[in-house]
């Protein structure tokens, strides 16, 4: 709810972007970024563009301009909105945004009516206390490395808090 309020009150634009392709000048298939400040939830589902105060969903993941995004797509929007609100991308900020994204996805039925699977990556990350102490950040980093090693390549260079 807070994420929706933030989007509405700050006039954040949302769209489905141009396909992101791995190729010359984009060896990792990264989203285009004006400010060099981008983020995603999961396999590059979407990203934010702070310069244009916007959130973009990746058409490569099946999102279309004229269709309501899936529960995961909506969760991605809230995740990105959290990053816009945070103002600066950090490891701790990422933990906060991942937790919010998972809770929204669960509420919207991405995990069915029975919710997040016990013992899953999502469950383990939701168990981390929202505290920016070093031990929690280190544990979160370890989870990112385990479950999303591709993103970890970039994540490891973020400031802790």
């Amino acid at each position, binding site marked *: 709810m807070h994420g929706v309020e933030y989007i509405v009150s700050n006039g954040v634009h949302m769209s489905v972007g141009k396909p992101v392709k791995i190729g010359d000048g984009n060896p990792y298939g990264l989203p285009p970024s004006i400010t060099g400040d981008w983020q995603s939830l999961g396999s590059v589902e979407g990203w934010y563009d702070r310069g244009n105060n916007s959130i973009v969903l990746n058409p490569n993941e099946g999102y279309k301009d004229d269709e309501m995004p899936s529960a995961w797509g909506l969760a991605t929007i809230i995740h990105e909105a959290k990053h816009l609100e945070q103002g600066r991308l950090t490891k701790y900020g990422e933990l906060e945004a991942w937790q919010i994204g998972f809770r929204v996805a669960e509420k919207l039925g991405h995990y069915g009516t029975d919710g997040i699977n*016990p*013992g899953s990556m999502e469950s383990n990350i939701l168990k981390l*206390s929202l505290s920016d102490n070093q031990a929690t950040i280190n544990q979160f980093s370890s989870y990112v490395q385990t479950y999303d090693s591709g993103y970890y390549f970039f994540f490891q260079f973020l400031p802790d808090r």
Partner: protein
Amino acid sequence: MKQLESILKTILIFVVCWGLVTACNKQQEKYGGQTFITSLGDPPVEFIIWSPVDQNQILVTASEIGQGRAEIYILDLSTNKKDVLAQTENGDMWAETWLPDGKKILIFVSPDTVEFEKGGYWLIDTSNHSLEFFGESGRQIWSPNGRMIATYIVDQKPGTNFREVKLHLLDIRTNTDEIIYEDAGTQMLFGFSWSPDSENLVYSVGDYTSSNLYVVNIKTKALTKITFDGSNDVPVWSPSRNIIAYAKVHNGLAPSIHLVRPDGSCDIKLSTLGDARSPTWSPDGGKLAFGLQMGFIIWRLTKYLARMDTKLCVPKFLIRLKILYYQRRLIVSLTSIFYIELSLESTNTRQLNI
């Protein structure tokens, strides 16, 4: 004469050494060690569930975070081959459980998974991969004797914060349904498992800050709380012993795998390896597999099981008779050693890449 004695000595030493090496090798074969299954592929391994009937079959869920690529396959440990049962390029799914005969598995598929006509629980026949829709809700596990199903159901009212969780027991023969746990609040179920005699159920209840394990007797409804601090999740009862393996998180930090008796005694931390998760027993109850950072590990538990078999939960000792030949005399000595040598448990390590 001296030459003959020297030859005999050499032969004796050779025989003793050969005997020792053979014994060690046999023990290694018998007791195995650790096997690392490295998840080099993409998406990464998330969960594993060992077949209830086949020592060589492990059910693997490999998936990206949330909506993305996911696949569910059976890994054959003897051939290192994958038998892919279900996969998606854009969706989310995971394996829930095997049916007791090991011929079918139950999986959960997220509503937006493109390869499936609808989200919910699906049964897959492991021989021909045929799919059968099972239901929209209700996480289930079958009792080992196949007569009961334990079902976890969450009732969530759309647009409200109302949330009710119930743990049902369904008797397949009499078609009777009984609720053994319910809560209308923030509590969640973090896994459940049957005892091998199908008479008890262990389950984890709590929230994301703390959860504990409870054992309930199906007939008497006697309830025993067996853990008291931290988060204690995904309990799995050994198929051959009264031992429960589970994942414990203290202060929200790295999870570790523990073993505990159903009365809460003899709680042993099994692994200090980082990010240990989803423990699962081999069908004979001799080995435990669990997820780690770069895949999963299979661990033979001889030493730990021997310890848990003792009344006082102490390491077991074996008195061994040693006969030595030294300076033309036979010397008999008694030595006590640990029941199972650590070195033997760790030397037979192999790595499989999937």
